């Protein structure tokens, strides 16, 4: 592509620039179209979880359902009501999609196919990932609606709280690979980092679920309290853009899990046949995506104070300790300086796995102790006031409780 552009008389720099620009254009288009499939897949899976059939009328297996929905939503009236801040109101949904699409630039799809192999890939992921909370704040602030504003504030409090453990979890692959480039992280995973750092994967999944704002962390659009949160005043395709952004983000979390912890495009023969690497990456990211869907379908919503307690009092200290332990072990273990094959990586990975299991067991014991104390406290309170109106016990009990 670049060569043929040079042939027709363009300078090298310009040719590369044009080729790259066309590349990211293709990336953005594929990303947005992929959302159609993601929404269909998620609705089908959700239906199975709830013992339904899911979309099955439009097209084979209901595959065209999302297309039909998109056409319908384009034909809807786009209401912009009194008192909104026009520019901010219109920019917010665009920014919400953009913040997700920008992540795709540093995803290595095959050994050669990557938007830009930035040397600061993971730092870029942090930077771009936090754009989403700005989009939500913009949407809530500009809507001139009390529900939207309150929803936006709750959402941002939640998103920024979970950004810290998420960032600390993403640092673990950086420590293990010794590089922030996503391509280097994939290349150095001779043994998947899932083996070496299962606790990190758990932290990452929990924090990502909160970043996604889905059940069990969907207080930002808790229907029973906030109508639809920051999206309350959005209609027509602007609402559609938020919807697209959310589903694309869910799949992107799957992609990130695959790249950072499941070895990305790595697999048998992936180095020789790049297309195979792409297939591996897709399969792996669907594993991550399915885990996210599963959690969403299984767990009920938690309260806002519980969410923030879980973030600050549990995940932040845990991810800090986890990072320090992994880094320390990785430093003192012999033979981690030059890992060039699965054989080299196996022993250190297994040692880290053992350390992780110890940490998980320790955390489990701490939580059990805390749960016991909590139950005792609730029982004591119940004994003190035998006739209590329904709900008072649950309301009075502090969530993560620590005095």
């Amino acid at each position, binding site marked *: 592509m670049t060569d043929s552009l040079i042939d027709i008389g363009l300078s090298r720099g310009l040719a590369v620039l044009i080729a790259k620009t066309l590349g990211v254009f293709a990336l953005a288009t594929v990303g947005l179209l992929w959302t159609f499939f993601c929404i269909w897949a998620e609705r089908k899976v959700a239906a199975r979880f709830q013992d339904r059939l899911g979309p099955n009328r439009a097209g084979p297996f209901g595959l065209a359902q999302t297309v039909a929905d998109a056409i319908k939503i384009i034909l809807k*009236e*786009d209401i912009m*009501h*009194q008192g909104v801040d026009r520019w901010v109101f219109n920019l917010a949904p665009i920014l919400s999609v953009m913040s997700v699409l920008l992540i795709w630039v540093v995803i290595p799809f095959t050994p050669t196919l990557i938007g830009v192999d930035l040397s600061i890939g993971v730092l870029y992921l942090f930077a771009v990932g936090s754009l989403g909370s700005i989009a939500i704040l913009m949407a809530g602030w500009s809507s001139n609606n*009390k529900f939207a504003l309150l929803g936006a504030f709750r959402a941002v409090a939640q998103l920024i709280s979970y950004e810290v453990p998420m960032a*600390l979890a993403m640092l673990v692959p*950086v420590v293990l690979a010794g590089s922030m480039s996503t391509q280097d992280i994939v290349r150095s995973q001779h043994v998947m980092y899932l083996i070496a750092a299962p606790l990190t994967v758990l932290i990452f999944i929990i924090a990502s679920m909160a970043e996604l704002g889905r059940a069990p962390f969907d207080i930002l659009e808790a229907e029973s309290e906030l109508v639809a949160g920051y999206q309350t005043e959005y209609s027509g395709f602007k609402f559609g853009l938020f919807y697209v952004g959310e589903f694309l983000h869910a799949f992107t979390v799957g992609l990130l899990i695959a790249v950072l912890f499941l070895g990305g495009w790595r697999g048998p023969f992936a180095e020789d046949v790049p297309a195979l690497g792409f297939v591996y990456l897709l399969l792996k990211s669907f594993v991550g995506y399915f885990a996210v869907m599963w959690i969403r379908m299984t767990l009920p919503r938690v309260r806002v104070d519980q969410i923030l307690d879980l973030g600050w009092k549990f995940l932040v200290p845990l991810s*800090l300790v986890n990072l320090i332990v992994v880094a320390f072990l990785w430093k003192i273990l012999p033979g981690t300086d030059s890992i060039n094959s699965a054989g080299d990586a196996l022993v250190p990975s297994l040692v880290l796995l053992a350390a992780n299991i110890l940490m998980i067991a320790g955390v489990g014991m701490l939580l059990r102790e805390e749960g016991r104390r909590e139950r005792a406290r609730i029982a004591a309170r119940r004994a003190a006031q035998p006739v209590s109106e329904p709900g008072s016990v649950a309301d009075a009990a502090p969530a993560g409780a620590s005095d």
Partner: protein
Amino acid sequence: MLSEYAPIAALLVISVGMGILILFISRIFGPFRPTARKLAPYESGMEPFGPAIRRIPVKFYRVAVLFILFDIEVIFFLPWAVVFRDLGSYGLVTMGVFFFVLTVGFIYEWKVGGLEWE
């Protein structure tokens, strides 16, 4: 060096362009029949009263301040995570000290009630 980021800038422009295009499409194809009721802010069917933007509970600001503190500390971890192998035991000890200070601050915040939501 900076030209590495040109595709990202291009994607930025492209996605904003796509977004604007999509918004225009829905303006063209969708109906546009505003009424006074439709243009009122949604408040569960009640008459909207007072300004929508009012004073925000201070606890949100507290979360924001906590986040800024911790995010900066995470940023300090980043360069260390990349080169800690080359820094040798010096790097490990230095980070241990930093981690200790961080932990003391965190415990203080916890005890003083900075992490409580209510």
